[in-house]
């Protein structure tokens, strides 16, 4: 036994020593243990060995092997410059100290730079900077998949642009899909699922070429207000309130309340505030876009559809990661809720691959929304009976319900954790909000971005537009939803720590069982 211990301790020596003298050292140990019997002698033996070990191990490591130096030099072929890399002397303490200092400095610099860089991720900065940013897709940094369809957008680079198939990760798609569902004059091309539906409404009001270069003048202000009034009267869900809001806008204009404003974005915010003074409706917005809003809506062409399919295929339908973590916890990182008609098989396969899990973590920290149909599709796996999913854009319809139970699914009663961040938007917020309200999931992370997008988008002119709620969706859970305020997590931690926290919670829960 003690020989084994010593043999193990011998492994502390460098290999060149062990190879040369390892057997001899063991032999010597055997000799001494044989000769030095008795408790005291044995104790002395081990004291000798251990104290000697402490001294001679470092010495062996600092030992430079002269034979190695000369041998490697001999190996060099003739004519090729060769260098003696190992010096005859061991390194001086000054050189070691200098080396350590340089290494330390490099490490510190690297980590500082790394942290510094992370703070400047433009995406999160944008979302955090202005509460409205989430509602203005054109101000969000564009994801690679969105780029190809950007130029194909029809009516909108605005919330209404969500019809475009390539914009699955764009929060606006979610909104617009809903918008089309609930608006009576939405066109539904045969065989198309919601994100492909078109809203072919002609914009109310005047088309005016406002540019960022000129200052906002009285004429333009009146044009925008006229457009807003017309849109309100025609589309707002409550006609009497629409009338009151229209009156308020005109009264403010007449009183000169708007005159001081020359910045268009500020003007849009001011009009939004004036309307909300009449009725505090978070879903009613008036927005400004510096980039001109396209005039005509266009249906996605077959090429665009093909492009969308290809983009989704390349990105695995934005199912970024599917893993089984220790303790049989399923982990799914989903970066959008893509079109069901394209991604249903992928989504089903993803859920099937996690069917064995004892708990499941949905990572929606980078999920910017998508299609409510996909939200319902994913949520279907978490219930054993059809469950109503509130969606601020939609009245109770068939689509508001999950398709539970899913045959063969075993996740309906497993603990669910949803990871959120300030970049979690729109459809991802619907998923989080409804699961939280149904007490089906524990939300871990940050308050979400607050993009509810329940208004249908209406163009006023090239740069101004309005989001107007046209239906009254009934929220069974609470008076307000996540519009502008976001969804509050159950466990508030930094987004970066959310996974670790959720896994710990899941493990604790599974251990209790």
């Amino acid at each position: 036994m003690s020989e084994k211990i010593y043999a193990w301790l011998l492994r502390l020596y460098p290999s060149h020593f062990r190879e040369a003298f390892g057997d001899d050292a063991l032999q010597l140990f055997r000799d001494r243990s044989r000769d030095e019997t008795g408790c005291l002698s044995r104790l002395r033996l081990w004291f000798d060995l251990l104290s000697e070990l402490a001294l001679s191990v470092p010495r062996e490591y600092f030992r430079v092997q002269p034979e190695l130096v000369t041998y490697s030099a001999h190996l060099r072929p003739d004519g090729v410059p060769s260098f003696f890399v190992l010096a005859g002397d061991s390194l001086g303490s000054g050189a070691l100290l200098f080396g350590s200092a340089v290494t330390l400095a490099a490490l510190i610099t690297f980590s500082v730079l790394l942290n510094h860089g992370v703070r400047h991720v433009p995406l999160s900065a944008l979302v955090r900077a202005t509460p409205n940013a989430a509602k203005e897709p054109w101000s969000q940094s564009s994801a690679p998949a969105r780029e190809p369809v950007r130029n194909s957008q029809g009516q909108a680079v605005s919330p209404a642009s969500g019809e475009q198939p390539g914009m699955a990760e764009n929060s606006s798609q979610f909104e617009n899909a809903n918008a089309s569902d609930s608006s009576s004059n939405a066109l539904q091309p045969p065989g198309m699922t919601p994100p492909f539906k078109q809203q072919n409404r002609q914009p109310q009001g005047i088309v005016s070429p406002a540019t960022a270069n000129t200052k906002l003048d009285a004429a333009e202000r009146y044009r925008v207000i006229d457009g807003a009034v017309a849109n309100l009267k025609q589309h707002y869900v409550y006609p009497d309130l629409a009338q009151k809001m229209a009156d308020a806008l005109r009264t403010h204009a007449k009183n000169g309340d708007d005159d001081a404003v020359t910045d268009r974005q500020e003007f849009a915010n001011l009009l939004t505030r004036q309307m909300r003074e009449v009725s505090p409706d978070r879903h009613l917005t008036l927005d400004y876009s510096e980039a001109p809003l396209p005039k005509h809506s266009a249906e996605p062409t077959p090429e665009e559809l093909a492009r969308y399919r290809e983009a989704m295929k390349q990105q695995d339908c934005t199912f970024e990661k599917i893993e089984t973590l220790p303790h049989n916890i399923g982990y799914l990182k989903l970066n959008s809720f893509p079109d069901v008609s394209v991604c249903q098989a992928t989504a089903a396969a993803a859920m099937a691959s996690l069917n064995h899990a004892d708990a499941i973590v949905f990572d929606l920290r980078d999920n910017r929304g998508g299609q409510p149909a996909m939200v319902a599709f994913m949520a279907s796996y978490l219930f054993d009976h059809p469950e109503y999913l509130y969606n601020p854009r939609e009245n109770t319809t068939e689509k508001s319900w999950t398709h539970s139970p899913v045959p063969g699914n075993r996740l309906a009663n497993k603990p669910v954790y949803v990871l959120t961040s300030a970049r979690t938007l729109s459809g991802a917020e619907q998923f989080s909000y409804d699961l939280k309200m149904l007490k089906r999931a524990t939300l871990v992370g940050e308050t979400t971005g607050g993009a509810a997008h329940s208004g249908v988008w209406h163009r006023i002119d090239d740069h101004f537009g309005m989001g107007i709620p046209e239906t009254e969706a009934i929220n069974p859970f609470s008076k307000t939803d996540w519009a502008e305020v976001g969804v509050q997590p159950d466990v508030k931690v930094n987004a970066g720590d959310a996974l670790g926290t959720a896994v710990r919670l899941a493990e604790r829960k599974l251990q209790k069982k």
Partner: protein
Amino acid sequence: MPKQKLNPLPSAAFQILLALAGEELHGYGIMRQVAEQTDGRMRLGPGTLYSSIRTLLEARLIQENEPREDAKLGGERRRYYRLTSAGRKLARSEAERLADLLRVARAKKILRGQYV
């Protein structure tokens, strides 16, 4: 390189040279001999022992003989070491250096007469 390691000669290396002055010994034999000649004050552990042996081998102060069994210690084959002439010379010069030191110490009345 070995010269640097052996200048000044570490006491362990000197003791090993002295131990081998009489006869060739294997590692354990050296260890026991050193313990004996220092009245048990120096017990060489395997690390120090073999590291010193290696240094002395590299400096050609000792050399290794064919491994053979030690009749008293059972059937294992052991490597035996013996002093080279260079080793004997170095041991002698080290002893002389110490003797010189001793003379100085005695002249300075650090040592009491009866000891050496």
